[in-house]
């Protein structure tokens, strides 16, 4: 049984993007979209039974398209979404070079990150989704995976802003407890929706979609002062027209600041006073939405109110979570993996 070679993988299952880092050196990221052809015709045209990631997004008119995660969790109660998560996970493992349905040569040991405040229910959904895809599974809080990957396990605050959730976590040299971490739902998606609403109010005659707005945000998000005006093109009565959305962009991006700053202060106040200074000097910003221009300096300015601090953006925000997961997977002792089989527990050993 243990003659099979072990392949360790770290997976960051994200609302918008999911990434995998594997011990064979493979690293991949896909957009978290899964689609099934709507009918026979679509299946004939697409020549596939399921499409994943950008490909699914591009063919969405012919697909029953699912974005199976919401606020970083598997949508509850929808079997289609559960199936979609399985397809997504299977696809990621395939990208890493192993066929999950034929694991005779490889034993797959996976670490999957979930939002900081995910409940047991949510974690169990992930376990269920991983059955038949990995042999062994460890579920970790996503900011913990980030911290582990960065080796920032003591006196660090990790702010991981994704699409579905913002996870804030203070590392105190222990597994984060309820007192050490917060999950906010103000994140990339809430910015998109906010921006979408603002643009529609300001330019009611322009036809814009949430997808377009999401693209604009990924290009031009900022807080504070813009480097240059944010100009985009959208059809007005069918005619492509330039729109200035600078003010809307700022307003939508800055809307995440109040809850973020409040939670940051709240978590800081729960740190032993002796170490608060060190934590403030060691704030790490990660996640796709963490790349909003000007966010780091803005948070530093907010930190002035409590004595000042330093905020830095991680070098590789796309893979920092899955890399951290991989590091955990590789460091976990061999014997422990045996206890973490994805099989149903009653089968025993």
């Amino acid at each position, binding site marked *: 049984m243990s003659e099979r070679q072990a392949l360790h993988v770290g997976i960051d299952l994200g609302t918008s993007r999911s990434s995998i880092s594997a011990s064979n050196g493979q690293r991949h990221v896909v957009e978290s979209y899964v689609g099934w052809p709507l009918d026979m015709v679509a299946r004939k045209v697409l020549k596939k039974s399921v499409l994943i990631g950008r490909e699914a997004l591009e063919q969405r008119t012919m697909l029953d398209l699912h974005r199976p995660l919401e*606020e970083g969790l598997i949508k509850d109660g929808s079997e289609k979404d559960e199936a979609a998560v399985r397809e997504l996970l299977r696809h990621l493992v395939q990208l890493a070079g192993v066929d999950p349905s034929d694991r005779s040569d490889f034993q797959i040991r996976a670490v999957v990150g979930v939002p900081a405040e995910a*409940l*047991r229910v949510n974690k169990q959904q992930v*376990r269920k989704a991983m059955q038949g895809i990995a042999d062994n599974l460890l579920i970790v809080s996503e900011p913990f995976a980030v911290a582990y990957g960065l080796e920032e396990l003591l006196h660090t605050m990790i702010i991981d802003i994704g699409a579905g959730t913002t996870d804030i976590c203070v590392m105190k040299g222990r597994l984060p407890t*309820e007192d050490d971490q917060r999950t906010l739902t103000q994140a990339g998606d809430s910015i998109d929706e906010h921006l979408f609403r603002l643009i529609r109010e300001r330019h009611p005659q322009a036809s814009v979609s949430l997808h377009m707005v999401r693209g604009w945000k990924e290009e031009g998000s900022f807080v504070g002062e813009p480097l240059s005006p944010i100009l985009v093109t959208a059809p007005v009565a069918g005619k492509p027209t330039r729109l200035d959305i600078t003010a809307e962009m700022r307003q939508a991006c800055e809307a995440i600041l109040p809850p973020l700053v409040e939670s940051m202060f709240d978590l800081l*106040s729960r740190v032993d006073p002796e170490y608060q200074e060190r934590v403030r000097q060691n704030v790490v910003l990660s996640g796709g939405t963490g790349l909003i221009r000007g966010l780091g300096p803005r948070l530093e300015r907010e930190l002035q109110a409590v004595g000042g601090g330093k905020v830095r953006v991680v070098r590789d925000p796309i893979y920092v979570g899955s890399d951290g997961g991989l590091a*955990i997977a590789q460091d976990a002792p061999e014997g422990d993996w045996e*206890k973490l*089989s994805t099989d149903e527990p009653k089968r025993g050993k």
Partner: protein
Amino acid sequence: MARVDRLKQRLLRELVEQNVELVAGLPRKTLKRRRRLRLGSSLLGLALLPVALLASSRLFAPALGPVAPPVDGSAASRVSNPGRTEGREIPEARLAAPRPIDPSVFPLAVRRIAIDPGHGGAAVGTRAASGLYEKDITLDIARRVRRLLEEASFEVVMTREEDRAVSLRERARIANEAQSDLFVSIHLNWIAGGNTRGVETYYLGPTDDPELDRLAALENRDSGYAVADFRRLLDQVYAGARLDSSRRLAESIDGSLFRSLSRLPSHLPTSGGSEIADRGVKTAPFLVLVSTEMPAVLAEVSCLSNETEAELLTKPLYRQYIAEALARGVRRYALAAESAPEKGT
């Protein structure tokens, strides 16, 4: 470097332990659990019905007086003209055939929380010397709790969203129809003398404290129930297995409130007032706890009769602090309910 490695080893060990627990607690089916849970607990409740009927009629006799003075005529007419509560009567057939309960349906229980901001509209509740109304503060705190719980991926149902009067009967109906898993009513206390600062949390039960009867009578005004309805409700409720859950929820919330409020952060000056008292978890016949069908508590989160408290309550930060404590209490209960599946009753 060596230190980091030791630290990593310890963290990994903790992480593995946490996950091993998760594996052990994995129920066979994770879908459609809520519906089964409901059926399970109501059957359990039915099994206890005969015992509880006996007990409740005795225990409750003294408590009933001040809550709803008996008005013979109207009570009788209600009985012959059954109201909405009649529909909740238990069909005999279900009583006859209790099915065994699969303990694995009990975990993963808490998803939707009903938050009930006390009073509202013309029913202002208690009032501080400064002119602060209970109804306004309870609504503000409730909104904060809602945000916090929603952030923690609970669903929240509010019994009122604005400043209007909602009868207790209506509040219970809202929570019941939304199929809430928990009910948390938020109130402020008024204790004569003005010296006492304190929190207390109630779940439904009899009391022989006349002071509590008075408080219950106060909170039970504008109920929309007649005496006959009330008796029937009580009999049903006492039978329920939810009593024990309600007690545990009350303990969780009260503990969280007291722990948070007894050591306020330094930016919330208590202006040398008296220490906050944990008046504890108590039982009382609050109507809104009677007619709700899920574990239900009523939290008196502060005392408007106390000057320090009345002053603190004007500060958003203090209201946020209370809201966080309430939300934490709910979360802790939810986590415990998930990880201790066998404690059905």
